[in-house]
């Protein structure tokens, strides 16, 4: 019998959360949480090491009956698309624990339990090969996230938590009806691979496409259903923001890749122009909103909307460069924006203000901090040599191939990105030292550098040598494209 590696990866954090319930000492809780997340990260590396990049087939598959009467199975597996996100989630897991080390000083145990439960559920989403199982993970995640925002968040946390919960729930419930319709249309199975092989009538595909779109668009989030995101980000504690930006938003885009495209290919092609237009709108609109922000966290939150616009644009360009760029950009956004939220959190712990106007001249007070901040800021604006450059370049070339106007709008968005990010960096890091913040700030310590370094490594690694990352997804993306185009043109 082989080791059920994916089950181990998914349930390792859950086991950690269960163990935490019996601990009383806050430090013990922190170290245990760190131990389990690091172990989980190690397992995800084992998974990647054993990953065969030459095939698009699902790997490390596990399959057990769960509710046979309804054709529900407990099925896990990863392909080139999900493997990257399992890895990203496991990586951000322990970074989140480190980021909450001192920032969370009350109800530490409950916080770590929520965080670990959250991680287990997100990993489950990326590994699930059964639509029902996927939905359970997808929806159950609302509970810990609601608590993370609502209990440990800022002053407006209750409002933000409600907004997050209800938006996501309302979107997901329509998705649930879509899932059940798909179940009956696809021959009473929830098996994702079997459903992918179905040829549904265009009418059905269209309805399902919109039912799915609402759920995924809320999660991504795409304009105009993005309004929960700034509230949730601003109010959430640092670790909550990292997980939200790093992996939760990816779940929406992942939904498009795993369900909309392969299961509803005709509808995806038919509505791709609409999706491209919405993506371009998100890029430009998010950019303008970010430009107007004084709150650091809000700025990064709106920049997220803009960056996720690139992701959906790449996906619905429906060509190889677009898709690979979009997926790589999902990974990059997780690393870069996760890091930026971490940086906002670090400085907020010291000064308890997020207003850009309160800062200035940080370079003189905290040189290491500012140096790293520079790296991630440049990465976020896609400077050549950093990870986002590779991703955005691929997306743009895919986007231009699909629709010139949309590509042009995206270029404008990229310019806006440079404007608000450089503006933010100038105000915060350069110039005279601001009177209000200077005396409280000490530079980053060892724990914080430990959290930052791996993210910095990935920024440069993907930026300078993206081949390993593209190789992982290549076979799966090509297979996905044949699924979309062959079936679409075959009609």
């Amino acid at each position, binding site marked *: 019998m082989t080791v059920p590696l994916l089950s181990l990866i998914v349930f390792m954090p859950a086991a950690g959360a269960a163990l935490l319930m019996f601990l009383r000492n806050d430090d013990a809780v922190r170290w245990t949480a760190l131990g389990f997340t690091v172990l989980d990260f190690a397992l995800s590396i084992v998974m990647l090491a054993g990953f065969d990049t030459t095939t698009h087939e699902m790997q490390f598959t596990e399959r057990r009956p769960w509710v046979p009467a309804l054709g529900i199975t407990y099925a896990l597996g990863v392909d080139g698309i999900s493997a990257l996100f399992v890895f990203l989630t496991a990586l951000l897991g322990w970074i989140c624990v480190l980021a909450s080390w001192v920032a969370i000083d009350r109800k530490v145990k409950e916080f770590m339990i929520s965080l670990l439960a959250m991680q287990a559920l997100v990993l489950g989403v990326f590994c699930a090969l059964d639509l029902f199982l996927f939905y359970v993970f997808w929806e159950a995640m609302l509970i810990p996230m609601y608590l993370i925002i*609502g209990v440990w968040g800022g002053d407006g*946390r209750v409002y933000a938590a409600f907004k997050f919960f209800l938006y996501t729930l*309302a979107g997901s419930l329509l998705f649930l*009806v879509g899932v059940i319709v798909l179940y009956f249309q696809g021959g009473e199975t929830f098996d994702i691979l079997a459903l992918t092989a179905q040829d549904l009538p265009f009418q059905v595909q269209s309805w399902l496409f919109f039912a799915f779109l609402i759920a995924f668009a809320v999660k991504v989030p795409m304009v105009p259903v993005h309004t929960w995101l700034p509230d949730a980000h601003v109010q959430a504690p640092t670790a909550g923001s990292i997980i939200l930006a790093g992996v939760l938003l990816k779940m929406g885009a992942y939904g498009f890749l795993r369900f909309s495209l392969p299961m509803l290919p005709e509808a995806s092609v038919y509505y791709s122009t609409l999706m491209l237009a919405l993506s371009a709108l998100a890029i430009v609109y998010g950019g303008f909103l970010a430009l107007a922000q004084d709150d650091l966290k809000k700025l990064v939150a709106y920049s997220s909307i803009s960056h996720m616009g690139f992701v959906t644009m790449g996906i619905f360009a429906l060509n190889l460069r677009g898709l690979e760029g979009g997926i790589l950009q999902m990974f990059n956004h997780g690393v870069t924006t996760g890091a930026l939220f971490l940086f906002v959190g670090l400085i907020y712990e010291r000064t308890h203000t997020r207003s850009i106007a309160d800062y200035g001249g940080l370079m003189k007070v905290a040189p290491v901090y500012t140096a790293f901040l520079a790296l991630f800021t440049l990465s976020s604006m896609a400077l050549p040599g950093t990870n986002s450059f590779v991703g955005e370049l691929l997306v743009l070339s895919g986007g231009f191939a699909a629709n010139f106007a949309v590509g042009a709008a995206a270029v404008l968005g990229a310019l806006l990105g440079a404007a608000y990010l450089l503006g933010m960096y100038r105000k915060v890091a350069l110039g005279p030292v601001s009177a209000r913040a200077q005396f409280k700030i000490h530079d980053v310590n060892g724990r914080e550098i430990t959290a930052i370094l791996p993210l910095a490594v990935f920024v440069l690694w993907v930026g300078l040598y993206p081949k390993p990352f593209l190789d992982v997804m290549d076979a799966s993306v090509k297979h996905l494209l044949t699924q979309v185009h062959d079936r679409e043109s075959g009609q």
Partner: protein
Amino acid sequence: MTAAELFQSVLASLPEIVVVTGACILLIVGQLVPKGQEHFLVWASVAVVLIAALLTLMLAGEVRPAYTGMFIADRFAVFFKFVFYLATVLTFLLSRKYADIEGIGSSEYYVLLLFALSGMMILASATDLLSIYVGLELMVLCTYVLTGFLRGERRSNEAALKYVILGAASTGIFLYGVSLVYGLTGTTQLDAMAAAVSGNPLDPGLLLAVVFIVAGLVFKVGAVPFHMWVPDVYEGAPTTITAFMSVGPKAAGFAVILRVFLNPLVAASDVWIIVAVIAVVTMALGSFVALVQDNFKRVLAYSSIAHAGFAILGVVAGGQDGIASVMFYLLIYAFMNLGIFGTVIMMRNGDFSGEVIEDYAGFAKSYPGLAFLMLLFLFSLAGIPPTAGFFAKFYVLVALVEQGFVMLAVIAVLLSAVAAYFYIRIVMVIYMREPERTFEPALTPLVRATLAFTAAGTIGIGLFPAWFLGLAQRSVFGG
């Protein structure tokens, strides 16, 4: 009726006989129990229910028609009887301490619950409109009295009076429908009724009769437009009785509704359109009105209305999956609703009523474990996975979509998103407020056991629904 038939009939109804006999004995013995020995009553009542449960299980092997077609002991009835046993036993366990606090010393409390149980059991097995009526009255008469059991409290008296008057009116309506059916078909047996009218199912007189019967039954499950009694009665009754009523009698009402509605007579009369409208309006009213309630028991009352609406959707779907989904829903609802009521009952201590939602502010800080259980029950009621409440709703939706009612499914999920708001609002009060007072929940070992058991059911059925789902599917009558 020959002696052999009589013997068979007695055998088929042995669990009911045990419960009724046990109740009668306790009625007498109860008077002799000295003060301070009330726990004897609890254990004796539990023992009666357990014996009945054992007998039910032993007799579950085959279908036993009894009393010349008035009564049947089939797997459908067995399933419902176990839901009733569950509800009753847990109510007994929750009542012990609560009865002390509220000053309910008398043994009639337990005896009446047992009689109500026997009424529900008869309802689940009834196959004749008259035996349905007998079971119904036995059940509701007991709950009328139990509702008014807090004699010193105005609210309780008022609730009981309202309940009696409205209940009597609905029974009258039901009986009128029965008399019409008898006049038109010459029988009150469900099967014979169907056979008698197979020629012309759309007789307007019969339709009228069906509407009356529907109205009478829908009253019992608290669906719109016969829901007005629910919030007042739920608020006024002793909380243990509210917990009991929201689970037991409601499930009994559904047992009858399933038997009557899925009878070919009703199925042929397009009455499902009425039922679908009732379901949607019930869900909408329950969900929206609950949004503005401050009293915990009233929120749960409206929540139970909303849940009744959701379960009725399963009746609309019909078919094997539709029936099974309603049964499965009621089983899960019993666990999660008794669980949340258990936490409300536990808060009642000393002079503190614990009935206002704000009373729970910051509860998570003092009692993280209990708060977590409440969170579990509330998310289950809201239908969030991986709790059982999600699977209950999911299966109803599957049954709906299977029959092509996709629009109804969409409406149902949107309304349950509305309902989710008031559940998570309570979670918010528990977790995200600062405590304003110290809590002294009345935690006895019995209450702890009840909470642990219901929590295990809520999470256990959510994670491993296969066995319970199979049980519900196998218990569908005629299947």
